[in-house]
């Protein structure tokens, strides 16, 4: 299996949501602010449940925010 990475656009979506704070997003998604910080830095990959919660906060689809990228094929969108 090729080495893969999960990228996200949480920072952009926060900006589009009126510069929503990391704290607010964390509280609404049910995680800590540190987890949001690490996700934005692509240093933590959330569980599917948390990814859905984040997508729901932004009223977006999970694939709008998270993308699966592997070395061979690039962004899988």
């Amino acid at each position, binding site marked *: 299996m090729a080495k893969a990475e999960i990228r996200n656009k949480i920072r952009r979506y926060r900006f589009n949501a009126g510069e929503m704070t990391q704290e607010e997003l964390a509280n609404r998604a049910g995680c*800590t*602010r540190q987890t949001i910080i690490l996700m934005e830095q692509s240093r933590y990959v959330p569980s599917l449940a948390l990814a859905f919660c984040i997508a729901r906060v932004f009223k977006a689809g999970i694939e709008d925010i998270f993308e699966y990228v592997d070395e061979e094929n690039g962004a899988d969108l």
Partner: protein
Amino acid sequence: MTQTRKRAAFTFLIWGMVMTAFSIIFFYGAGPERYALEKWRRLAGAGIIACGYFSYGLMLFLTRIRTGNHAVGRDERDEEIQNHANASAFPFVLVYVFALSIILWEKYQGIGFVPVGWMWFMAYSTSFAAFISSSVIALILEFKASAHGQG
């Protein structure tokens, strides 16, 4: 500071101090060979361990997530770090017990028996090894996963 980091740091501090205090009592004076025969040392050792467990329990109580607090204090990442730390500490404890047994065998094989006081040391120090290794691993994982974070 997250609950995971707080708890790991306090666990390391509490059990580090307990281990130091117990080691001083255990190796004090006539040393391990007479530990089981000197009642005051056994009682002092047991008292130190009891203080350790009491402090540990108190720390867990004081660092609990308060209901009604708006912010989320613990999430899936904290659970993941804790589970990983516990799983990684397990082989460390196994190696510790094995290594201590071999060291005792090497030291006392000439006389054919191990002074019974060492059984106390092994029993207590296994707890120290478990608590300390688990907290150190949790701190490392927590640090690695948030070294550039804002919190």
